[in-house]
C-alpha cells in the first residue's frame, strides 16, 4: 500500500470504527480513539515530505491499479507541487478539529468525530487523485459527512443551511459530471487526467467544458456571484464544520481550476480570463466591503473568506509564476488563518452562546491570553508581514502588477478593506471596557484550547517568516503548468 493510500484510508478506517463501535456513554474513549486516529493520520503523511523530490513537475508517489475495468476507471493517485501541501494541511487541520471539538461536543460524539475523520480522508483523496472519475467520487462524497455535520450539530437554522450547502454544490458538480463523461468519450475511453491535458479540443468545446467545470469549482471556491451559500452555511455550521469548510473544502474548488479548467481547456481559460479576473476583483473589493458591515462574527469571517479566495482565483488567471504560486500559497495560508479565525469565534461562542459582535466588548480584560492569540490571527487575516496571510497576497499582487499595473493597484487597495473589517471587528469585540456581565464572567482559555491556538499560531508564524519550503515545492509544477497553458490546444 502506497503512502497516499495510507493517507486517505487511515482516517477513513478510524472513522468507520468510531461509527461502528462508539456510544455516548463511552465518550471519553471515543475522543481518545479519534485523537489517536487523527494524529496517526497526520503522521502517515509526514514521510511524504521526506520523500518529495523538488525540481520535477512529474507526479510522485504514484499508485495506479484498475478500479472499474468496464469504464477504464483507475485507482490512480499521485501528488505534484500543486497538490502536495494540501495533503498535509488537511491532515493537520483534522488533528486541530478533533482537539477543538473535545468537550464542546457532547451529543453523539462518535458520529461527530467519525464524520470529520472520514471527511478528512475523502478530501485528501480529492487532492491526490489523477483519475477524473475517482476525483468526482471523492469530490461528491465529501458532501455527505459535511451535510450531516451541519445538520446534526449546527445552529438554530441548521436545516436550511445543510440543504443549501448540499444542493448548491451538487448543482454545480452535476454539470462537471457531464463534462467528465464527455471527456471520457472524446479521449477514446479514458478518465486519465494527464491524458486529458494533452487532448486537442476545438474552441467551442473548450469553452463549454470550461464553463461546465466553472459551475462546480466556482460554487465551491466560492466566487462572486455564486458565493451566497457560504455565509449562510458558515453561520449555522458547528465551529469544527466551519473551520474545515473554510480551511479545506473551499480549496477543493480552487484546486479543481488548476487540475482541470486551466490545463484541459487552456484556450478557453485564456479567452475568458478577463471574466474570471473581473469576478475575482469583485469578490476582493465588493465582498470585502460587505464583510465590513456584518453584525455576526461568523458571517464577517465567511465574507472575508470569499474575499481571500478572490485573491486565489485572481492569481490563477493572470497566468504568471508569481500569480499562480501566490494563489496556491494563499490557499494554504488561508487554510490555517481561516481555521484559526473560526476556532477563535468558537471559543467565544462556547462561553457566551452568541456570535453577535454587539454581544461582546472588552474581552481583553477577562481573557488576556486568548486575546493575544486572537490579535495575532486578526493580523494574519489582514495580511500583516511576518504572518502567513502576507506571503500569498503579496505574491498575487506582485504578479498582478506584472500583468497590468492597474490590476495590481486594484488588488492592493483591497488589502485596506481586509485590514479595516478585521481590525474593526477586533476592536469592537476585544478592546474597550467590559461591555456586559457575560463578558465579565468569561474564563480564559483552557489548556486544551491553548494547545489548539498554539498549533495554528505556530503554523501561521512559520509560514509567514519562512515560506521557502512551501514555494520551493510548488515552483517547478507551477512553471510547467503555465508552459502548458500557454500552448494552444486548438488543432
Amino acid at each position: 500500500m502506497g503512502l497516499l493510500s495510507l493517507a486517505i484510508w487511515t482516517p477513513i478506517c478510524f472513522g468507520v470504527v468510531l461509527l461502528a463501535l462508539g456510544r455516548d456513554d463511552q465518550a471519553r474513549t471515543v475522543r481518545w480513539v479519534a485523537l489517536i486516529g487523527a494524529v496517526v493520520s497526520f503522521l502517515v503523511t509526514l514521510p511524504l515530505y521526506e520523500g518529495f523530490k523538488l525540481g520535477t513537475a512529474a507526479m510522485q508517489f504514484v499508485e495506479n491499479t484498475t478500479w472499474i475495468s468496464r469504464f477504464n476507471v483507475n485507482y490512480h493517485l499521485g501528488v505534484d507541487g500543486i497538490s502536495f501541501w494540501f495533503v498535509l494541511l488537511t491532515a493537520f487541520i483534522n488533528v486541530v478539529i478533533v482537539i477543538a471539538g473535545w468537550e464542546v461536543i457532547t451529543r453523539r460524539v462518535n458520529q461527530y468525530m467519525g464524520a470529520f475523520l472520514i471527511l478528512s480522508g475523502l478530501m485528501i483523496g480529492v487532492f491526490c487523485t489523477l483519475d477524473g472519475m475517482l476525483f468526482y467520487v471523492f469530490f461528491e462524497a465529501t458532501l455527505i459527512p459535511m451535510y450531516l455535520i451541519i445538520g446534526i450539530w449546527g445552529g438554530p437554522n441548521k436545516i436550511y443551511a445543510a440543504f443549501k450547502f448540499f444542493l448548491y454544490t451538487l448543482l454545480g458538480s452535476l454539470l462537471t459530471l457531464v463534462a467528465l463523461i464527455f471527456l471520457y468519450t472524446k479521449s477514446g475511453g479514458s478518465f486519465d487526467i494527464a491524458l486529458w491535458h494533452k487532448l486537442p479540443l476545438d474552441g467551442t468545446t473548450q469553452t463549454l467544458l470550461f464553463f461546465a467545470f466553472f459551475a462546480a469549482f466556482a460554487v465551491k471556491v466560492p466566487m462572486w456571484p455564486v458565493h451566497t451559500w457560504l455565509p449562510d452555511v458558515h453561520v449555522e455550521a458547528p465551529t469544527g464544520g466551519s473551520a474545515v469548510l473554510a480551511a479545506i473544502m473551499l480549496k477543493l474548488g480552487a484546486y479543481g481550476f488548476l487540475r482541470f479548467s486551466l490545463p484541459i481547456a487552456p484556450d478557453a481559460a485564456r479567452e475568458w480570463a478577463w471574466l474570471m479576473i473581473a469576478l475575482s476583483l469583485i469578490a476582493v473589493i465588493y465582498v470585502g466591503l460587505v464583510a465590513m458591515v456584518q453584525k455576526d462574527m461568523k458571517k464577517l469571517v465567511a465574507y472575508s473568506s470569499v474575499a481571500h479566495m478572490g485573491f486565489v482565483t485572481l492569481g490563477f488567471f493572470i497566468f504568471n509564476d508569481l500569480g499562480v504560486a501566490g494563489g496556491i500559497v494563499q490557499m494554504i495560508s488561508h487554510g490555517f488563518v481561516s481555521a484559526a479565525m473560526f476556532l477563535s469565534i468558537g471559543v467565544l461562542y462556547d462561553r457566551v452562546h452568541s456570535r453577535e459582535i454587539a454581544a461582546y466588548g472588552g474581552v481583553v480584560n477577562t481573557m488576556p491570553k486568548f486575546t493575544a492569540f486572537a490579535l495575532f490571527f486578526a493580523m494574519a487575516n489582514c495580511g500583516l508581514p511576518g504572518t502567513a496571510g502576507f506571503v500569498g497576497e503579496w505574491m498575487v499582487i506582485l504578479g498582478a502588477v506584472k500583468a497590468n499595473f492597474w490590476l495590481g493597484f486594484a488588488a492592493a487597495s483591497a488589502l485596506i478593506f481586509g485590514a479595516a473589517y478585521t481590525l474593526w471587528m477586533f476592536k469592537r469585540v476585544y478592546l474597550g471596557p467590559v461591555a456586559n456581565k457575560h463578558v465579565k464572567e468569561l474564563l480564559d482559555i483552557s489548556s486544551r484550547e491553548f494547545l489548539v491556538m498554539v498549533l495554528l499560531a505556530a503554523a501561521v508564524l512559520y509560514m509567514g517568516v519562512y515560506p521557502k519550503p512551501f514555494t520551493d515545492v510548488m515552483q517547478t509544477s507551477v512553471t510547467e503548468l503555465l508552459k502548458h497553458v500557454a500552448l494552444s490546444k486548438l488543432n
Partner: protein
Amino acid sequence: MIDKLSWISVYPEIILLVMGCVIALADLAVNSARRTATYVMTLLTLGVVACLQASYASSGVTLYGFGNMVVSDQMGDWLKCFATVAVMVTLVYGRPYAADRTMLRGGELFSLGIFSLLGMFVMISGNNFLVIYLGLELLTLASYALVALRRDNGVATEAAMKYFVLGALASGFLLYGMSMMYGATGSLDINSVFKAINSGQIRHQVLIFGLVFIVAGLAFKLGVVPFHMWIPDVYQGAPTAVTLLIGGAPKLAAFAIMIRLLVEGMLPLALDWQQMLLVLSVGSLIIGNLAAIAQTNLKRMLAFSTISHMGFVLLGMMSGVVNGNINSAANAYSSSMFYVVTYVLTTLASFGVILLLAREGFESEEIADFAGLNQRSPLYAAVMAICLFSLAGIPPMVGFYAKLSVLQALIASGQTFQIGLAVFAVAMSLIGAFFYLRVVKVMYFDQPITASTVSAPLDVRVVLSINGALVLILGLVPGGLMVLCANAVVQMLGT
C-alpha cells in the same frame, strides 16, 4: 419427443411450480403463528433455485427449449437469479410484518410469492409473445391476490381493485399489440418476428400500430408516465411487504421483457420505439421527481421515485441505436440492466427499514415516523441513509454508478441531442436529491417522537445489514457487476 436440453432449460421453473404447490399443501398442516415451517421450506426452495440459476448463468450457455418457446441465456439467468434472491429477501423482511397483521393465517404470502416468482421466470425466459404474456399474467394474478391479502383492510382492497382493473387494461394493450404483430409478421416467435421485420417487406404502418400498443403495455408494467397512475396508489395501499414484492423483483422481469420484445424482437424498429421511449422517459423524470417532493408518505414518495428511476432505465434503452448504428447497443442496454439490478437492491433495503420499523398497529410509512431514527438506532438509520444517497445518485453509493453508466451511454452516442438529454437528466436528479435528503434530514436532524429502541428478529437484522452494506460495497467496487451485465447483454445481442 421433447429433447433433454429443453427440460434442462426449465428445471428452475419446474422446481418452483412443484414446490409452490407442495408448500401450499404442506402449509395446511402448519399452525404456528409465524408459519416457520412454511417459511423455511420457501427459503430453501428459493435458495436452491437461486444457486441453480447462478450456475446456469456462469456456464454461459444459451439453450433454446420446446421448439424455441423458451430461452435460457446469460442475461435471463442472471436476472432470474437476482429476482429469486430479491423475493427471498422480501419474504425475510416481510414475515414479521405480515404476522402482525393477520396476513399469516394461511401460507398464501409464501405460496403466492413463489407463484409470482414463477411468473417472472416465465416472462424472463419467454422467447415467444404468448409465453411472455402467460408469464406476465401469472405474475400479476398472484400480485393482485397478494395486494388484497388483508381482506378486511379498506385501503388495501381499494389498491387491489385499482391494480386489477388497470393491470387488466395494460395486459389487454400488450396482447392487442402482440396480435397486431402476429397479423403482420405471421409468427409469435420472437426470432421469426425479428427476421420478418428485418426483411423489410412488411408495411411499416402496421408494425408501428402494433408497436405502439406493445410499448404502452410495457410502459404500464414498468410504471412510466403517462401510464404511471396505479403506482403511487398501489405502493401506498398495499401492505408494505407486498409493496416490496411488487416494487422489487418484478422490475427485473419487466426489464427482461422489454429487452426481449423491443430489442430481440423489434430492433429494426428501434428508431420508432426510441422516440416513444424518449417521451415516456422525459415525462417520468419530470413527473416522478416533481411529484415526489410533495409527498408526506414515504411509500408514496418512493413510488414516485420509482417512476423517475424507470425513466432513467428507459434513457439507457434510448441510446443504443444511433442513426441505424447498433455498435453502442451493448453498452447502452447493459447500463440499463445495471441500473435495474442496483435499483432493486437499493429498494429492498429501503423498504426493509420501513418494514422493520412497522409494529403491530403502526405502519411507519409517514416520513415523519422516521424522525430521529439515528438516535433510536444508528445502524438502521445508516442503512436507510445509504439507500437514500444511493437513490439520489451520490457517490460512493452504487446508485451513482448506475446513473453514471446510463449518462455515459447517452454521451457516448456523440449526438448533441443526447448530450442535452444527459444534462436534462442530471438536472432532474438534482431535484430528486432534494426529497431524498429530506428523509435523511428527518432521520438525522429531527428529534425522535418515541424513545423506543428498534427491535427485530435475527434473520431480518442480518439480511438487512448485509443488504445495506452491499449498496455501499458495490459502490466501492462496482466493476464486477458492470462486467457481468455487459457480458450478459453482449451474449444476448450476439445470438
